[in-house]
């Protein structure tokens, strides 16, 4: 399937990656090549086959619903690009 620049721009937006206008045609071409490669999957008869959810036959383990961690605000914020008064700081979100 050929991907046009509008679709490429939409995907970039969904992925929250800024792509300059002049780079969209090249990006669309790359997507088309990769998706063309993936199209081979249409040859496979998958009728009645369940999509795999876990490669090993195991149930996800459960545990008591109790607090097991916490009180590490300093460690959590240690690598933040911007933090103030015990919080992550970001540009204003709500007007």
């Amino acid at each position, binding site marked *: 399937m050929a991907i046009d620049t509008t679709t490429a721009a939409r995907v970039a937006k969904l*992925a929250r990656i800024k792509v300059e206008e002049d780079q969209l045609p090249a990006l669309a071409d790359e997507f088309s090549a990769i998706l063309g490669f*993936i199209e081979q*999957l249409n040859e496979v008869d998958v009728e009645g086959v369940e999509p795999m959810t*876990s490669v090993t036959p*195991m149930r996800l*383990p459960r545990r008591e619903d109790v607090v097991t961690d916490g009180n590490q605000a300093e460690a959590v914020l240690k*690598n933040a*690009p*911007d933090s103030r008064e015990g919080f992550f700081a970001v*540009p204003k979100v709500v007007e």
Partner: protein
Amino acid sequence: MSDKMNMTIAQARDALRKGDFSAVELAEASLAAVTASKPLNAFVHDTSDIAMNQAKAADARIKAGDAPDMCGIPIGMKDLFCTKGVNSQAASAILDGFKPEYESTVSQKLFDNGAVMVGKLNMDEFAMGSSNETSTYGNVINPWKVDDQDLTPGGSSGGSAAAVAANTCLAATGTDTGGSIRQPAAFTGITGIKPTYGRCSRWGIVAFASSLDQAGPMTKDVRDAAIMLEAMCGYDPKDSTSADIPVPNFEAALTGDIKGKTIGIPKEYRMDGMADEIEKLWADGTAMLKDAGAKIVDISLPHTKYALPAYYVIAPAEASSNLARYDGVRFGHRAKLEAGDGITEMYEKTRAEGFGAEVQRRVMVGTYVLSAGFYDAYYNRARRVRALIKKDFDDVFATGVDAILTPATPSSAFELGKEVADPVEMYLNDVFTVTVNLAGLPGISVPAGLDSKGLPLGLQLIGKPWEEGDLLNTAFALETAIGFDAKPTHWWA
């Protein structure tokens, strides 16, 4: 270069216990070799202070008679592993300066076992690549050369492979999502094993595609792979996919006796246009296993051809989800914002600046295949095909096959820059390895010979789930029969 650095883990372990030299002396030799290996660009973060402290502690344990197998052994750590207080960036600019406040389970297990970390190792950005050319730290150069050409060490664990092949450390950690341990091991003439999915905890390893990622050792031989793998694996409640089953003594499984074992040769791996020397390598390996007493059978894995396209849906889909966390808020890089920029601009600029081209490409492909209207056609279809690929293996093992022999890679190491232009061409590097990740199986690459250019080639053995011990023993028998002992010329120092 010191003789100590030519040793295997097993040799150094025995020498340390006998007192031939100390862990501190071994660490010093390793750190000197690391420094001298600058031209390879394998090591990217210095951990010499940690190494010296760990080596002193190892000497104390050895003296006290309490020395596990990895005690005092200098290893390199792939940059994908979070190591407390040490830069852990997955070779990405978006994690610039990131120093975790915690230690990954696998690195912690190795440290508990006495291992000495001599540095963090280069890799493809977020483990996405087959040539180590997507790293923010620049290319790794393969210690093996043809004339004056710089060759790729493979990827994504290219730094790990180069570091071990160059004798800068005795072993290194790697991770393997589609072949990232086995392909670089083959390109550098070393051994690399990806264990069964769930053997090694993924906790604290920067996630690429969570249903495929597994850590494993990259070592000089099969015995070392057995020793180091045992130290790395085991149940971890912090990883919900970690297997709660006992870890056997893998080294004890290495008897070299494979009489009566059944080895499958899959016809679908005989690709059109396969190089004659790869074909011969494979046939020779088959003959050697037969001579060692194994029964050889032809088998069919009919969906092999669809493994790569399925992988290039599933892995990018999982990557797009996993990499959503890199948004400039909690860690790593945040773009400089202009007046009026809001939070969306912050995300978009941060991710455009922080992610390299291949990572951006895969995140966007993943976003596309998961987007409304395409989820069923791409993502669910790929997961159905994955179920069929796994069933191919289940069916073969059900007929009594113990292990499967294939080539590890379609070629030897290629020139840096040669395949960068075409992403799909690059993806074909993983054609023999990626099925193993999709089926969650253990796979090992063993050096098997040199091609006409004098570059190493590997053979891959694929085993049954949780049967790493048996797989390692078959690999040990193959290694013994092959007797590979070639080493790269020491040109870099």
